[in-house]
């Protein structure tokens, strides 16, 4: 759409600007403040420069949670994106069953995150949970509160359960927007199913898949509640992801300087991804 140049449009944006600024700028500046100061209580602060940043970046604790965070995000992306596309491809195209599928599949998306964690906790308990009991009955030694591998398996399975539907919905919507004439042309050419997927469906899905990929990247990068409720970051620190670590040091240990510096590093990383996302998405849209 060709838009009119009109700077008075700022008045329409002003309310949003005011409320988001209150929420974004004031807290962000608070964090910046903490990150460069040291306090000994009584609201006395001393300027510390970049010491906290250096300390956080050098600390093994931060590096470990960062590594865990990237492994987690990498694994769930590798599972959820292909699985979501496969499910979307085999879903009914229209009619009552398509609606039933959509409604049932959206259900996990609308469950409060701590309930997701609590639900999976109950589901995975080794003695009385369906998953834990079945795995142990099948001869696996499974206990997610004691073994790191079991804990990781449960956290990943939970995330797949929770978020694959988002990829399915996006891919499904993308598939529905492909015009029928493409399929007819493919049929005339005698193209195989695989060729149809590779040369028609996949290129058409590129836009929504970029979006799914980045949304899942960002949201899994910020994951806090579900693993916190499920494992509490344990056993040991094996499932302590970035957000869990951050909340622990900010609200738990009240280690303001380090937490502030860590917040900023964390925020800059997501910001970088966000910028990538925006550039990619907008290039597709030609706005």
């Amino acid at each position, binding site marked *: 759409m060709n838009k009119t140049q009109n700077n008075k*449009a700022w008045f329409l*944006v002003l309310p*949003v600007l005011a409320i*988001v600024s209150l929420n974004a700028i004031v807290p962000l500046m608070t964090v910046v403040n903490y990150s460069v100061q040291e306090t000994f209580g009584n609201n006395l602060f001393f300027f510390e420069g970049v010491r906290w940043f250096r300390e956080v970046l050098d600390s093994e604790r931060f590096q470990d949670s960062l590594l865990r965070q990237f492994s987690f995000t990498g694994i769930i992306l590798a599972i959820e994106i292909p699985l979501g596309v496969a499910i979307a491809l085999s879903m009914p195209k229209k009619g009552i069953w398509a609606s039933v599928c959509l409604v049932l599949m959206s259900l996990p998306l609308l469950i409060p995150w701590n309930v997701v964690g*609590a639900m999976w906790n109950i589901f995975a308990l080794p003695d009385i949970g369906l998953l834990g009991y079945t795995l142990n009955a099948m001869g696996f030694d499974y206990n997610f509160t004691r073994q790191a591998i079991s804990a990781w398996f449960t956290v990943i399975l939970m995330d797949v359960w929770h978020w694959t539907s988002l990829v399915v919905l*996006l891919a499904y919507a993308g598939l*529905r927007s492909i015009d029928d004439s493409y399929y007819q042309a493919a049929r005339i050419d005698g193209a195989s199913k695989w060729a149809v997927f590779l040369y028609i469906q996949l290129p058409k899905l590129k836009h929504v898949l970029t979006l799914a990929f980045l949304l899942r990247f960002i949201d899994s990068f910020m994951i806090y509640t579900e693993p916190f409720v499920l494992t509490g970051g344990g056993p040991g620190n094996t499932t302590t992801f970035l957000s869990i670590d951050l909340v622990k040091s900010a609200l738990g240990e009240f280690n303001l300087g380090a937490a502030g510096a860590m917040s900023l590093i964390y925020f800059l990383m997501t910001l970088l991804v966000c*910028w990538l996302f925006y550039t990619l998405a907008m290039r597709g849209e030609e706005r």
Partner: protein
Amino acid sequence: MKNFRWFVPTLYILFLMAPIYWLLNMSFKTTNEILGGFSLWPKDFTIDSYVEILTNPVWYNGYINSLSYVLLNMIISVSFALPAAYAFSRYRFLGDKHLFFWLLTNRMAPPAVFALPFLQLYSSMGLFDTPLAVALAHALFNIPLSVWILEGFMSGVPKEIDETAYIDGYSFPRFFVKIFMPLIASGIGVTAFFVFMFSWVELLLAKTLTSVAAKPIAAVMTRTSSTAGYELGLLAAAGVLTIIPGAIVIWFVRNHIAKGFAMGRV
């Protein structure tokens, strides 16, 4: 081959339903039965857990608190976002692209980063432990989201409609409410759905910003889960009850969900 297509979605839905079934199963068991051992369905069928939740004010106030900040947030987010989305969809103005990007970055900001500063900000404003504090805090990610979704729907309305209305002598507010908003009604519905969703499922900020009076149901539940074991039935019943509002909302927007997602604007 073709007849087996239903197999994949069916299997997936079964996988989705298994933990939910287990939660339901637990919620209808007595504490003794839960701790007594593994069973696929409740043998001593009981609704005591539900009765306890619906009669104990600590529990049901949790639901009321959660619903009140979610609704408040929905009203704030949608009504603030409407004019802004209109500006972005119709006009070019100084710094519009930068502003849009900056708004989006807030959707991507990890709530963990903001938890502590929010606590201090809202305490100093005297809003701590009120639904309004949570509603305002959730506006941080819900307003950018609303602007984004609404802008997509508004760009689908031809500009000629605006121009005709102005020629017919409509003022901007009258045109906006009487003509424009009915045209994007489904867009407003989809937006409200996503705003509801993200405010309903968020816990970290909601928990940080409340202590007693406005405690959300999710936080009431964390208290029980930490005392472990013997209150599993209650926890399960409370969990089941949190699924219901979401399920109702999905049922209402089922035909629009795919479209809302299709716009690629979540």
